[in-house]
């Protein structure tokens, strides 16, 4: 099965920038996680998104032309920041893989993929 791990977190919380002490270690933990997924045959896809300040929302109303709105879909305490698309035997394995993500705040939503046109 394929699962998407949706990464939600507080964008405004301080984060490390290149050159900061500890930045390399921080990035290293993500690279190591990615490598673990690849080595285990779990990797399908993944991405880190630019912050919601760069978001544009296209809102549909039946019978009207879509409205283009500056900003994210909803103002929330936690924002959608990135995702992994993984292959796992079942939900238990997906949860175990999500637990290994090097995040220590925010939340991770795990959803099975119902249909993916480019699935191999």
């Amino acid at each position, binding site marked *: *099965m394929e699962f998407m791990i949706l990464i939600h977190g507080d964008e405004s919380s301080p984060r490390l920038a290149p050159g900061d002490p500890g930045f390399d270690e921080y990035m290293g933990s993500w690279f190591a996680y990615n490598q673990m997924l690849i080595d285990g045959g779990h990797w399908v896809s993944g991405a880190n998104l630019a912050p919601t300040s760069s978001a544009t929302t296209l809102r549909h109303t039946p019978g009207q032309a879509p409205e283009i709105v500056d900003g994210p879909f909803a103002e929330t305490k936690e924002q959608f920041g990135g995702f992994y698309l993984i292959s*796992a*035997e079942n939900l238990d394995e997906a949860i*175990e893989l999500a637990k290994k993500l090097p995040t220590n705040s925010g939340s991770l939503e795990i959803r099975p993929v*119902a249909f993916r046109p480019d*699935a191999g």
Partner: protein
Amino acid sequence: MLALLTRRFGDLDAADDAVQDALITALTAWQSGVPERPAAWLYTVARNTLVDQMRRDRASRRRLHEAAPELTAHHTTTENEEEDDLIMDASSLGDERLRLLLLCCHPALDRDTQVALTLRLAGGLSAAEVAAAYLLPESTLTQRVVRAKRKIREAGMPLTIPANLDERVDALLRVLYLIFNEGYLSRGSEHVTRVDLMLEAIRLTRQVVDEVPASAEAEGLLALELYHQARSGTRVDGLGELVLLEHQDRTGWNLDVITEADARLHSAMTRMAPGPYQVQAIIAGHHANAHTAADTDWAAIAELYAQLGRMTANPVVELNRAVAIAMADGPLAGLAVLDRLTGLDDYHLFHATRGELLARAGRPASASFERARELTSNEAERRHLERRAAETATAR
């Protein structure tokens, strides 16, 4: 049986339906005589239904695939329908039963759903019985179960023994104890038609003890449930009024059940893996084996509650410790513990306890009983608190 079928066909919902259908078929088919192996008969009927259904599904999938290949998944359907002999020996059935229980209590399901599924699928109660036990409309319960089955199927929740078995057994025991308490506390309330959730919880806990013999906590929970069950008959008087532990008629306690609880607790403790259920069982054992309330070793119980508090960080434990200290050292010592306790202002038993201790210390108590009465939803408890509020108001 449901567990076996679910495991073989990978579809809990369809398996549940098939078992229900088989039972209905049996109602008419068995009128002329019950077959030699009724369980095997039912299993065969249910399995045949499922095989038929899979053939139909496969045929329609094939048609869909021919019509719109881009819409159907590529996973190859295995055509081997191995018609192996019925495997119904107790060992494999027990293992399947545990898998089903663990699935019903999967942490990806919310607590109410875990309870509903456990009773409905592992306990085998009807939707109407579970709904009645929790005073819910049957449609609500049915909806809850349907949604849960869909989530189990769509979210890819496996019917396997998990790698983190200890953690998952903890979750399972929590659900069973919740069911037990619902049954224990609702006993003697006006809903006399309720199925006996207490006995159902004990039955399921026994299964877990049998299937996970390494778990000291499972057997600890069983001991705890048995101690409570042994004195459940004296918890309410003939008029349906609540009787406090110290006033209960100890000759009415079931000695056979207490003896079994003692043995279970002893067996759990020999595994040298202490846990909150075992500590609670030790406390319940102190009560169950004391001849009178005054005979009880309250100092030991206070110490056990302190131990339990370190394990669970639950303020209710501290409330119980306050009671034990009041019994050992007097109401003022208990009240001193209560005064340091925070976070229980909305908990009726906090105020009820405070009321009792104040009354014993000869201080005004009816306001505490009043507050407790406002907070409880249990009818018998409410009447008891009303009575105490009135008694302490006139005593002043």
